[in-house]
């Protein structure tokens, strides 16, 4: 699949304090990515996390 340049990945919490999505910069664009394996951005984020090339920061 597509290799993406992903930076600034950070979880976003819902109102109950649970991680519900990821805010990231992908190929220069700020995006909000759902935690869904069928979403290509989430799949690539997790691929890079598993390869150790990307870390997702905790929610603020």
């Amino acid at each position, binding site marked *: 699949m597509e290799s993406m340049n992903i930076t600034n990945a950070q979880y976003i919490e819902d109102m109950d304090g649970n991680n519900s999505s990821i805010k990231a910069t992908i190929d220069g664009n700020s*995006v909000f990515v759902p935690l869904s394996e*069928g*979403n290509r951005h989430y799949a690539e984020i997790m691929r890079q996390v598993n390869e150790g090339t990307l870390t997702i920061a905790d929610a603020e």
Partner: protein
Amino acid sequence: MALSKVDPNFLNVSQVGGRRNILINGNMEVNQRSFSSNTGRTQFTYAGDRWIFAKNDVVNYDSSYNSFSVGQTDVPGAKAYHEFTLNSAGSGTDFVRLEQRIEDVTTAAGEQVTLSFWARSNTGSGFTLDADGITAGPVEIMQYFGTGGTPSSVVETDFATSITLNTTWTKYTYTATLPSVSGKTIGTDGNDHLRLIIGTMMDDDAGNGIQIAQVQLERGDTATPFEHRSYAEELSLCQRYFNNIVDYYGTNVTGLFMTAAYATDNTYTVYQYPVEMRAPPTFSYGGAYTDFKSRHGNNVTPSNITTHGYGSKRQIALGFTATATAGSAGWMESVSSDAYMYLDAEF
């Protein structure tokens, strides 16, 4: 009359002949991203709806989306075409090409399929593309079994091992048999698909460029006339994969959706998609906060826009940091042609 006597050219004149084109936006008239062109691109480009300029590793290419002139007869009934030119590519398996990814890898498995499209060289002289250093030809279809679990490896089937592009618009037609998927394993992530590939260009094709229009992929061994669907129908099909919430008109503000103030500085909405999307989509917006206004008895530029809660195929919750009276109702509007809000569930 025996069915064997039915002329497929007559299938285009009645409802029974409908739904022949497996592709969406084959006539390339839907362009929700308002994509026009880019130069020196090294990443994927999601262009006119459902069409992708895909690449592998090191490539540099130009791409564009162009409208045909009204009344043109070179490609009858065509509204627009995609074009790309390879500037350079690394050696080996580096490439750029035009793709459409068709949901569900089992589509037409074990069946004959026929591809037809129009294309021409954009360089002023003809050229030939061949398979070069990869396993398949420049026009092919790939069965991609997805990710998650232990999916089967991709299976590639050639439509053509080489293609010669002319300087005039020419219609190309190919038939192939897609392998059966019996015994195959589909990944668990829900992203399996068929991948139609046209015009793979590699390092020795640098300097060449292709224009492609009116693409149809259909079951069977015969290329029938291009199936024209209404714009509204095609747009609806496209919105399963991509949706731009904002449709700005001229100098007037455009209301987007109702909002409710949860607190004095936060308003929220739940936006219902026009159609159920393929997967929970990625949300993005632009150009700037000043391209949007929140109206809750006031007229305020939001200082933040974000998603709330888990993704869904049917709706998304959005939040805006903007002053409001807690408990009040209002709305969000766009005030600039630069404004967009994208929902992206493409492969």
